[in-house]
C-alpha cells in the first residue's frame, strides 16, 4: 500500500522537508514564467498561502525562483493557491493608486468536485470518493478535454488531481490566459448541461436539433454508462433509486415501466426496456424527439462544473504540487494517456514520499564524490533533482515536464512564424 499512513499531525514536520527537497521549484517557475515572453509575468503573479492555524495570506508575490523557494521554505504553507497576473506586484498592491491595481491575465480553469454529484451517486457522499464514483471524473476529463481542444482550439491543458475529491483543469494557452470574464463565463456555460438545484428534478433537457458538442459528449458517456451506472451504482436496483431515475419521465412512460419492473428485476434489462420505450414514443410523436434516455445518462454522468470558479480572472485555485492537508495527497498532474488506470488512492502522500526519501540508495556513494567538486547551490539543485526522482513523485513530475516541453515547442514555433512574417517582402 503506497499510502504509508498519513497523519495530519505530522504535517509540521513533513512540509519543511517537502519544500526543501521535493517540491519541483524549477519546473514550477518555468511553467509560470511562460518562456519570459511577457515582462514581469512571474513577478506580478498572486499566490496565496494558508499557514498553520488556518492563517490565510493573500497577495504574495516573488521576484525570482530563488525568492519563491526561500519564502515557501520559511513560511511552510499548508495550502498554496495560484491567482492572477496583476498590473503590479501583488505584494505591493497597497502602494498602488486605488483603482489601478487590476487582475490582467490568468489561466482558464475548471474545478470538478465530486460533492456536486451527490444527488446522483449512491456509493459515497460529501468528501468521500471510491473507485466506483471515480469513473465520473474520468468521464468529465474525457468530455472536457476533447471540447476544450477540438471546439475551442486550446492546446495546453494541465489536468491535476485535487488531492481529495476532484480534479482541476488549467488551460494555459496564451489566448486562454487573456480571456475576459464574459468569455470565461461563456465557455463554462457552453460546457454546462446539468442545470438546477434542489428544486429541479429534470436537470437535463434536450431538444432538436442536438448540438454536435452534446453528441460528442454523449458518445463518451455511453461508453461508460452501463458499467458505471447500471452495474456499479445500481441505479435501477432499489425502488428508491428507480423512482429517482423515472422521475424525469412523462407519466405514461413511467407507468408502463413501473408495471414492467414488477416482473423484470434485472437492472440491465430494465435499462434496455426504458431505452426501447423512449425510442418507441419518439418515433410516434409529432413534435421534436424525446430524448429521455439520453437525458438520464447525462444527468447521472455528465460533468458538473462550478461556473463561478471559471468565471473570475482573479479567482484563486489550488496549486499543482500543493499538499491536501486532510488526505496528505499531493495535487499531481494526471497523464491523460494513462487515464483509464489512474487511481486516486495510488497518488502518493507527503508521508510516503518523505519516507521514500530516507531510504538509502546503492549508487549514492558515487554521487557524493561529485558533490565535493560543485558549489553549494548547484549541489542543492542536483540533490533535489535526484531526490524526487527516487520517490513516487517522479513520474508525476515527468508528466509536468512533458507538458512544459510542449508549451516551449509551441512558443518556439510561434516565434519562428513571427520572424518569418517580418522577413516577408
Amino acid at each position: 500500500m503506497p499510502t504509508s499512513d498519513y497523519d495530519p499531525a505530522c504535517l509540521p514536520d513533513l512540509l519543511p522537508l517537502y519544500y526543501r527537497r521535493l517540491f519541483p521549484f524549477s519546473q514550477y517557475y518555468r511553467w509560470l514564467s511562460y518562456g519570459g515572453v511577457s515582462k514581469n509575468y512571474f513577478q506580478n503573479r498572486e499566490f496565496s498561502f494558508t499557514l498553520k492555524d488556518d492563517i490565510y495570506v493573500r497577495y504574495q508575490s516573488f521576484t525570482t525562483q530563488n525568492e519563491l523557494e526561500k519564502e515557501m521554505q520559511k513560511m511552510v504553507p499548508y495550502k498554496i493557491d495560484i491567482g492572477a497576473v496583476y498590473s503590479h506586484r501583488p505584494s505591493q498592491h497597497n502602494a498602488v493608486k486605488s483603482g489601478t491595481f487590476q487582475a490582467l491575465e490568468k489561466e482558464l480553469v475548471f474545478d470538478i468536485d465530486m460533492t456536486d454529484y451527490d444527488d446522483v451517486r449512491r456509493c459515497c457522499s460529501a468528501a468521500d470518493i471510491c473507485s466506483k464514483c471515480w469513473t465520473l471524473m474520468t468521464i468529465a476529463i474525457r468530455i472536457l478535454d476533447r471540447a476544450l481542444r477540438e471546439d475551442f482550439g486550446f492546446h495546453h491543458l494541465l489536468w491535476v488531481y485535487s488531492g481529495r475529491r476532484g480534479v482541476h483543469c488549467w488551460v494555459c494557452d496564451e489566448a486562454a490566459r487573456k480571456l475576459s470574464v464574459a468569455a470565461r463565463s461563456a465557455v463554462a456555460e457552453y460546457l454546462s448541461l446539468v442545470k438546477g438545484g434542489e428544486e429541479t428534478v429534470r436537470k437535463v433537457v434536450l431538444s432538436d436539433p442536438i448540438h454536435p458538442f452534446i453528441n460528442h459528449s454523449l458518445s463518451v458517456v455511453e461508453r461508460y454508462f452501463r458499467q458505471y451506472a447500471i452495474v456499479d451504482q445500481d441505479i435501477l436496483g432499489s425502488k428508491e433509486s428507480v423512482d429517482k431515475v423515472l422521475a424525469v419521465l412523462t407519466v405514461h412512460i413511467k407507468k408502463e415501466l413501473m408495471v414492467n419492473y414488477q416482473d423484470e428485476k434485472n437492472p440491465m434489462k430494465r435499462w434496455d426496456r426504458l431505452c426501447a420505450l423512449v425510442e418507441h414514443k419518439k418515433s410516434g410523436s409529432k413534435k421534436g424527439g424525446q430524448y429521455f434516455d439520453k437525458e438520464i445518462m447525462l444527468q447521472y454522468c455528465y460533468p458538473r462544473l462550478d461556473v463561478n470558479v471559471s468565471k473570475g480572472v482573479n479567482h484563486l485555485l489550488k496549486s499543482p504540487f500543493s499538499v491536501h492537508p486532510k488526505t496528505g495527497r499531493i495535487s499531481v498532474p494526471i497523464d491523460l494517456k494513462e487515464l483509464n488506470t489512474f487511481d486516486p488512492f495510488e497518488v502518493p502522500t507527503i508521508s510516503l514520499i518523505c519516507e521514500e526519501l530516507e531510504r538509502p540508495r546503492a549508487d549514492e556513494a558515487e554521487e557524493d564524490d561529485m558533490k565535493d567538486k560543485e558549489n553549494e547551490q548547484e549541489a542543492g539543485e542536483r540533490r533535489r533533482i535526484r531526490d524526487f526522482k527516487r520517490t513516487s513523485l517522479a513520474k508525476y513530475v515527468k508528466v509536468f515536464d512533458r507538458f512544459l516541453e510542449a508549451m516551449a515547442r509551441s512558443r518556439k514555433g510561434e516565434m519562428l512564424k513571427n520572424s518569418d512574417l517580418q522577413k516577408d517582402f
Partner: protein
Amino acid sequence: MQFLGRRKKLIGSSQNDLYDHCLQFYGQPPLENISLTEFETFAVERLKLLKTVENLGVSYVKNSDPYTKKMEAEFSSLNFPLKTELDDRKIQGGTSEYDKRRKDHISHFILRLAYCQTEDLRRWFIQQEMDLFRFRFGYLPPRHKTDFLHKNNLKYETVSAEEKKSLKDKLIASSYGLSGITLEEYDFYKVPFQDALDLVRTRKVYLLAGNAYIPHHEIITIVLNDFRTRLSKALAVTARSLPAVQSDERLQPLLSHLSHAYVGQDYSIQKNIGKISLEQIDPLSGKSFPLCMRHLHKALRENHHLRHGGRMQYGLFLKGIGLTLEQALQFWRSEFVKGKVDADKFDKAYAYSVRHMFGKEGKRTDYTPYSCMKVILSNPPSQGDYHGCPFRHSDPELLKQKLQNYKVSPSGINQILELVKGMHYQLACQKYFELTHNVEDAGFSLNHPNQYFTESQKLLGGGRDIKKEVDMSQRSQENTANVTRPSQDNSKQANEEMGDLDSFFQDE
C-alpha cells in the same frame, strides 16, 4: 456640445452625410448647438422610448407581431427613425427622416450623460439600447443589413463552399432552422469564438478550433455584442468627464431627474433602518416576502445553513428591508449555531462576510440588494443551492406544489404557470403578489425584491411614510413624462379588507 439660448442654423450639406443610414452605432458625438428646450425634449422622449422598450420586452415575446406593432406605434408617436427611406427625405406635413435621425443621435448622447454614473444605471441603459438596436436592425431589409455591416467595418470571413459541405451535418445540427438546402444558399461567417460569446454561451452555433460558424441571420448577435462593448466603454469614458457637465446648473437638475425617475430605487439607502425586529421576520416572510426570499428563509430555518449565493441574495435583501448590521449578525449566528457551525467558527468564517455585505470590510463597498434582473440572470443555483428566482429556476411541478402549500388558488396557480412558460418571471411574481394580497392589480411594475416588500407593507398598512414617498416621485414622473400609471385605488380597498388578510396568512 455648447448650449445657447437660441438655436443656430445648420450650415452645409456635410451634415446630411452624417445621417445616411437610419441606424447607427453612435460612434461620433454630435457637434452642433441646440437649445435647452430641445435638449430636454429629446432626452425625455428617448427615455419614454427606452421605457417602452423595457415594458414591451417583459410583456411580449420579442419580435412577435404584437411586440412589433406596438414598437412601430411608439416610434411613430415619438418621432424616432425606423424606415430606411434613404432617398425620400422630406415627408410632407411631418418630421423629416433627417430630423428623426438627428434626434436619435443627439438624444442617445444626452442619455449617456444621465446613465453613466452607476453600475445599475449603465446596465439598464445598455440593456434597453441593445434591445432597441436589435429591433431596428431586425427591421432592416437584408440588403441594408449587409450594407450597414460593411459601412461599419464589420467584415467577417465567409466560409468556403467546400468547408461548408464537409461540415454540413454539424452545421445543420447546431443552427436552428437550417436544412440542407438553405445551408447552400446561406452565407456562413467564421468568427473567433471570443466575438460571438452570446451564441457560444447558449450553444447556438458550431464551434471548431476556436472559431464559431455563424449563419448570416445570426450575425445580429455578433453585432449586438460589438455594440454592447462599445457602449460600455463609452459610458466609462463619459463618466470621467461628467463633473464638467454637472457643474452646468442648467443641466444638472435635468440629468439627475432623468436617472432617478425612471430606473427606480436601488434600495441602497434604507429608509427604515432598525424598524424591523428579528421576531417579525418569520411572519413577514409569509406575508410580505417575494417567493424567492420566502424560499430562502424557509431553507435557512430548516437547514440552519445557506450557501454563499443564498447568503448574498437573502442577506442583502434583509439589509434592504432595514436590518442593522448587529441584527443581521445576530440573525445569522443564531440560525447557523443551531446547525453544524459553532459560535466560534461563525465568528471566524461567516461574520466577516456579513460585515462585508454592510460595507464594513475589504473594499468597503456598500453592496446593493439584488434586483430581479440580477437574480434571474446571474448565478443560477445548482445542487445544494436555494437562491435564484423560483419562477425561473424551479421545476414547474415543484413550483406548483409550493404554491399549493402556500394556499394559492388553482386558477391563480395556472395563471402563474402560464406566465412562467412564457418566460415572464417578474410578471409571474407580480401575479403571486396579487393573489396573496388579494388585489386585482398590484399597482406597480415589479423589478426588485425589496420593492415587493415595500409595496406589500404599504398595502398591509405597515408603512405610511413609504407610501407618501412613492406617490410623490410618481407624481413628478407624471408631470414631465406624461406616462399613464395604473391607479392606486386598489390599495385603498385592500386596506379596508385588511382585517381578513392576517388570518389568511396563518400558515407554517
